[in-house]
């Protein structure tokens, strides 16, 4: 049971093997380094599929648990405690899928310091998977902060012109929230005598007024990461300056660490406070949805537009999670994946045109459909997925979220969902405007007339995302089946707690 070679450990730490090999390779062997990184991440993905095969989808509890004492400090035991359940399995798979895709996207985009880049990238994967697996608060915190470091370097070294500013801002912002969370973690451990999340949940019994403070402290870390309005100010900088692969991971996975944090820690650890805060969180989420959509519309830089669209999309996720009913939470969880796929793919698409034109200003484009029909068609599908067209993945998530939020007792009023649904119109407004400015209208810029359409490598980069966009849109049952038992358990727990509080 407690084997160090358990599949979860393999998934989490196999990239270290790749890093070791890359560090031993001479830095001039760029191609070899790239292939090593790609193959490492593909093997990691394969391992995560093995994990999926071993996953028992009828079991709502943590599975494949590895648990051992790690650090003994006085009477406390910090444990190495990892496990997986329906709340995290899709996010782990998303991480292991997006990593090789991102690495493939750097093939021609990253030419300098490839060795360091790949090492940091694989290191980042270790941190992200660790975040989703950790079941000990201290261990979680270590992984959580650990992801900051490689991302900081990815932006700071391989980023755009204002990369240092963006990297530092990203770092400080996230740190600021994390410190509050750390305080709360330490307080919890002091009072309850354990860092173990399942034990803390089982024990329960934290008085409501304390719960309130702890909830807010955790929320500070997670809300900045999501980012919830109005804490999003670091996001456009980080996204615009980050290299394409960094943006894909940032939007695809790192933001999900925030929403996941709410789901894994805030809701089950502080259920009464959760119920109390649900309308407030929903309110901020709705503002974020509408505000993000409006601000996206006014952008002149396509990457910035996509960055702000995340504020809007993640608002939907938060609204769903805090509906605290099965529809809302399952929709929210699925929408985390959907956003990772769609927005990840959008950032890849932006990167592809940036590599060709070295600009992301809408004014430089127009009529590209004519010269790059494959690129246009694929971008169109991604755009439609992002705006929630039925039959594609985004709709399944958005619809279930809004449906859940509309009838949510915790949120307490259908107005939240009703207003949020306006975001569906606004999404069409800014996304179609984006598509129009890039691909429609006359092809009147000289520089655009000889652009090359996508090559096979670029199509292969996007293909897995497109397949999943259709798959989840048309037949989401396998995905829902993975998450629904765990979500059901969580919802039941919150409801009992809420009832007990009354």
């Amino acid at each position, binding site marked *: 049971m407690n084997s160090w070679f358990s599949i979860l450990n393999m998934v989490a730490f196999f990239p270290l093997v790749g890093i070791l090999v890359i560090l031993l390779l001479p830095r001039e062997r760029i191609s070899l380094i790239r292939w090593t990184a790609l193959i490492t991440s593909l093997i990691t993905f394969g391992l995560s599929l093995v994990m999926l095969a071993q996953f028992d989808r009828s079991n709502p509890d943590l599975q494949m648990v590895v648990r051992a004492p790690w650090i003994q400090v006085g009477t406390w035991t910090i444990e190495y405690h990892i496990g997986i359940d329906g709340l995290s399995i899709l996010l782990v798979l998303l991480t292991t899928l997006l990593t090789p895709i991102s690495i493939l996207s750097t093939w021609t985009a990253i030419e300098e310091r490839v060795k360091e880049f790949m090492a940091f990238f694989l290191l980042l994967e270790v941190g992200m998977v660790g975040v989703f697996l950790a079941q000990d608060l201290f261990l979680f915190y270590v992984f959580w902060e650990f992801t900051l470091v490689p991302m900081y370097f990815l932006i700071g070294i391989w980023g755009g012109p204002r990369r240092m*500013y963006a990297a530092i801002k990203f770092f400080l912002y996230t*740190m600021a929230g994390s410190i509050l969370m750390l305080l709360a973690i330490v307080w919890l451990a002091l009072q309850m005598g354990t860092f173990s999340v399942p034990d803390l949940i089982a024990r329960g019994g934290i008085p409501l007024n304390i719960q309130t403070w702890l909830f807010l402290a955790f929320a500070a870390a997670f809300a900045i990461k999501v980012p919830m309005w109005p804490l999003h100010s670091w996001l456009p900088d980080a996204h615009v300056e980050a290299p394409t692969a960094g943006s894909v991971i940032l939007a695809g996975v790192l933001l999900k660490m925030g929403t996941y944090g709410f789901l894994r820690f805030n809701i089950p650890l502080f259920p009464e406070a959760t119920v109390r805060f649900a309308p407030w969180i929903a309110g901020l989420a709705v503002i974020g949805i509408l505000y993000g959509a409006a601000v996206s519309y006014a952008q002149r830089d396509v990457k910035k537009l996509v960055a702000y669209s995340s504020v809007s999309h993640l608002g939907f996720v938060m609204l769903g999670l805090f509906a605290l009913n099965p529809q809302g939470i399952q929709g929210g969880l699925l929408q985390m994946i959907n956003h990772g796929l769609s927005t990840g793919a959008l950032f890849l698409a932006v990167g592809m045109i940036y590599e060709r034109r070295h600009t992301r200003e809408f004014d430089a484009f127009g009529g590209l*459909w004519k010269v790059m029909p494959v690129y246009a068609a694929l971008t169109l599908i991604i755009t439609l997925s992002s705006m929630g067209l039925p*039959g594609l993945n985004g709709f399944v998530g958005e619809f279930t979220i809004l449906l859940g939020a*509309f009838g949510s007792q915790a949120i307490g009023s259908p107005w939240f969902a009703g207003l949020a*649904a306006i975001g*569906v119109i606004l999404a069409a407004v800014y996304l179609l405007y984006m598509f129009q400015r890039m691909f*429609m209208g006359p092809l009147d810029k000289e520089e655009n007339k000889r652009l090359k359409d996508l090559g096979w490598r670029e199509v292969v980069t996007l293909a897995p995302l497109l397949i999943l966009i259709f798959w989840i849109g048309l037949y989401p049952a396998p995905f829902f089946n993975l998450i629904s038992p765990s979500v059901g358990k969580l919802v039941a727990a919150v409801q009992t707690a809420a009832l007990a509080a009354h």
Partner: protein
Amino acid sequence: MLLREVVQGWGLFAYAPLIVGLPILGLLINMVLGRRLGERFTAIVASGAVGLSFVVACLQLAALLGHPEGARVPVADWITVGGLDVAWAIKVDTLSATMMLMVTGVSTLIHIYAYGYMHEDVRLNGDPGRFTRFFVYFNLFVAAMMILVSGDSFLTLFVGWEGVGLCSYLLIGFWFEKGKDGIGNALAAKKAFIVNRIGDLGFLLAMFLTFWTFKSLQFDRVFESAQALGAAAGGTITVITLFLLVGAAGKSAQIPLYVWLPDAMAGPTPVSALIHAATMVTAGIYMIVRTHVLFQLAPISSNIVVIIGAATAFFAATIAVAQFDIKKVLAYSTISQLGFMIAAVGMGAYVAGMFHLVAHAFFKALLFLGSGSVIQGIEHGHHAVAGHGEASGHFDPQDMRNMGGLRGRMRVTFWVYLIGALALAGIPPLAGFFSKDEILASSASTNIVVYVVLAAAALMTAFYMGRQVLMVFFGSPRSEAAAHAHENPPIMTVPLMVLAGLSILGGALNLPGVDTLGRWLEHVLESAHAVPFNPLVAALSTAIALLAIGLAWLLYGRKPLLENQPDPLARDLGPAFVGMQHKWWVDELYDFLVVRRYVWLAGFLANTIDWSFWHNWFHDRVIAQSFRAGTRWMAESFDLPVIDGASARLAEWTRSTAEGLRRLQTGRVRNYGIYILAGLVVMMGYFLLRSLS
């Protein structure tokens, strides 16, 4: 005996999913092979796929003859989440089968026509490579439309609903680099999608409310519990149906959301015929008929439906009277006729609404395809002239002022167009007479005001059709292009002739006293009451139509319009004509009230609030400065013996990072990283030690 069993057995229902599957198969084949194997191949695959869908629809008809109660053919699970259980399933009943037959039948004809039309169109527009793409979109549209009509729940209907909207977007923007300033078509496409999304918001809200009231989105279950709850849920049902009406107003181009449809004429003409006249725009009417159980429980909503429909019928007709673009006349006519149908279903005359829907599909598809034939005829003429270097400047092949006298040059087009126009005008015994008459008769027996409004709309309908036919086909050519126009090949004219036949005979679907369609739909619309044939109403509408045509002849027939001569109606109507011609400035009003407000608000939020205030001032100045001040204070006065040295280091790190915030580029990345890690360890150590001591 065996055949009889097969025909009447449930077996045939099992083929129903093919009605969606075949067009999808067709588009996949064309996506892979279309460009390599040429236009003929593409057209045959696309038309063949839809034609086979029509065959499947006929099989469903046969199956329904034996089992009129219909069947639900499940295909796969879709969304199953906490009480919400929606599956991919095909619902075959007499109502959906009617739509299937009409849509696939008309689609097949238009696909064939489009082979001829697009062959020319892609060359006239200078990009023959786009031929295949057109048919891929066209097949996709048929598939989406079939999902729409066969959905057995609100949600699956909505999938088709948005799917047809997407196809509409793609096809309006088919020549995305053309139109006014090279961007006109793209803007029209975007407008169509966004206005439809506004309607879709209504649909979505209706679904949320339905689900939480009736705990299901499947039609049968919702209707069952709605009837069981009855008046107890009256208020909720009223709200639900009003939201549904918003959806219908978007898709079926009713006031106040009709504005997208005239712009949608930017699409190639077969698109206007198929999507924006015959099929997609009728989805709103179909949806109301499908959910009629709810509307019957909500008399307030039904009344509002009637008002919206009648107002739209009248309002759009006034605009149609004063248009010069041949397709714009037809577009406003379509909006007006959709208003007739909406009014009918609001009155509870569901059969009349469906009857007019089908009949209108025949003659409006005919008219649009006929106008396409005219436009291409004129374009040929224009090219023939331009080829000799005589034409110069901008020439609009859709402007009726550039036409005239085409009767002799395009004989087939003329005759079929005349039939379509007369059918639309409501001249007996053509299809439009019977279908429109049923609506008028129903309104005469329920609400005399509505009757008067609709009759006035009918008068204008006959007038603008008379005006159009006279301006286009009679008199003498008003341009060189019109003088050199010539008839199109049989691939285009044969489908026109078939549609003309249907426009003549379509009335037979539901002749007074026989009520074929009424009896057929009875299985779905148990409560639908047929209004008895009213000879007085019929005579009156015929008289109205003849009067209007006579009036048109007086103005445009007796003395045909000459080149550069203003419209005689402009003189007679004065300022009213200007209003009609400018579409009562509704687009300008919306632009002022909604579009510009939003653009301004978005810009204000993005530039002033989010960037200048929140990002630049609050974060980069206020927070950064106070952070710097705070860390200085820490470094100078905050001291702990245990971690003395480390604390200084921490402060040094925070100070220098804050400096970095100000000076942006210092480049000492590694150093920062080390400080950061060190700071982290120090802080954690600090807290741990604190808690231990």
